């Protein structure tokens, strides 16, 4: 069984959409990160990491979420799979996580960071950037 894995998801060219990736980058450099924990700064296709997820004691995903919550706040997404009819082309991170749970049996917890703005740009919005330390605290607590 491989050690726990953290995957940050998102497109870092689209502002807060890359919040999960940015959080993972910071986490990987954080001296408080327990030894043995692996961290991946992923893109937008979680299924690419199916092999990495297999045979893990657990996996934590961090992704961006558009919600009513305050920008930069993070919550556990516990919904079941969304109805696919909501998407023409691709599987959402929620669906991909559910699919990987079914296929690999690995416990996967998906956290969503509420975004302020997911528009063109390589920087996070100040609201989300300011909350990164708290996001990291929460993920480290989870670990």
């Amino acid at each position: 069984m491989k050690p726990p894995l953290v995957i940050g998801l998102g497109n870092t060219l689209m502002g807060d959409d890359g919040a999960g990736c940015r959080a993972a980058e910071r986490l990987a450099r954080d001296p408080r990160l327990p030894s043995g924990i692996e961290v991946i700064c992923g893109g937008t296709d979680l299924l690419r990491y199916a092999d990495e997820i297999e045979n893990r004691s657990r996996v934590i995903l961090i992704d961006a979420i558009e919600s009513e919550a305050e920008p930069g706040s993070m919550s556990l997404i516990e919904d079941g799979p969304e109805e696919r009819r909501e998407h023409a082309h691709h599987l959402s991170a929620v669906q991909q996580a559910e699919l990987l749970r079914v296929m690999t049996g690995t416990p996967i917890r998906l956290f969503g960071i509420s975004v302020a703005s997911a528009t063109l740009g390589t920087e996070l919005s100040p609201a989300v950037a300011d909350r990164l330390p708290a996001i990291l605290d929460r993920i480290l607590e989870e670990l």
Partner: protein
Amino acid sequence: MSVIVIEHLARVEGHGGITVELEGDAVTNVRFDVFEGSRLLEPLVRGKRYDEVPPILSRICAICSAAHTLTSLKATEAAFGIRVSPQTELLRELLFRGESIESHALHLFLLAIPDYLNYPGAVALAADKPAAVLLGLRLKKLGNRIQETIGGRAVHPVNALVGGFGKVPALDQLIELRSGLLQAAADADAAIDLMASLPAADFCHSETVYAALRSPHLDSYYLGDEVMVVTDGNRAIVPASDYASLTNEKAVPHSHAKHSSFRGSPFMVGSLARLTVNPRRLTGKLAVAMKRLKLSLPADNPMDNNKAQALELINDVERALEIIEQLLRDGIKDERPMPVQPRAGTGTAITEAPRGLLIHSYQYDADGCVVAADVITPTALNAASMELHFRRGVEQCAEREEAVITKRLQMIARAYDPCISCSVHLVRR
């Protein structure tokens, strides 16, 4: 008047997906909205040096990042007059094939097949028929492995550079890929079995114009500088440098994607277009598989694009094997990228991304910095054709129940394998 709206094709505020307006049984209007991320990324590369461009534009799409990278390189090399080595051409083609295998496996098994079998999605399919999903994930994994070996990493390849590759694959890596591909040949056959067993999707017929890269070889995704357009048996050729006369883009009020048409007709790009334009490879095993899938070309049913993708899985695996055999036979040379001498000028490249024709065109200054950039994605090229097929799908639907029409429209949309939501993918509540 009644209106059917499918909102979730696009994922940017204020932009819907498909809207159908009906006056009694008559279809009065059909609109398809596209958020076209690549257009918005173009300002990001303006002023950037040539070697900074591919890593930025590869992020247009997580699934097609290799195609964007290689098309970007090809455009820059065209602008600077760089001719890459035959080995680089082969490795780039191999990278394209890996991406195509990955993309088609993902699309067919996780997105399209659940529709045919009336599952709400891939998760439900996996719970009930895990073997089908495992088959898809195995093929996807092989596609990823090819991209990692050649491109340096699976997402956004870093090893493909202007003029060649930073590092060429080692002999043992190629041998390992060959063994994976030999196994995958059986999986690609199994994909045909599965596709042949699906209920027919026979609810949208329309004469269709097809456009694909005209390659000097059998069916290259990378080599070639001309597009062939097939209309009702007639063939026209458009050089890459004259791509504007292929696309004839027009802004439409309801969509971020401009609509393309050739000689007044929307056209379809992608797997079905490739097989229609380059049928020379459809012999032997592929001809048998085509018969099993009851596919005849040129097709008048956009749903046949799913069958064409399944055929391309066989073809991609075969072609990738051929390339590896050739590299092993010739011996892999430890080549450095060709020297780069920037110069002012314009370069345009056209390739076949998994979803169809991809165009990158850049204008450079004498220092090799981007003055202007134009990127046209397959989904943007397909937008007008999709809209036409949505209209035909509704017109030919005898039932006027919203749920039936919605499902058919979504199946047609998925058959095109559109890539709408690549730039922003966040979970939306």
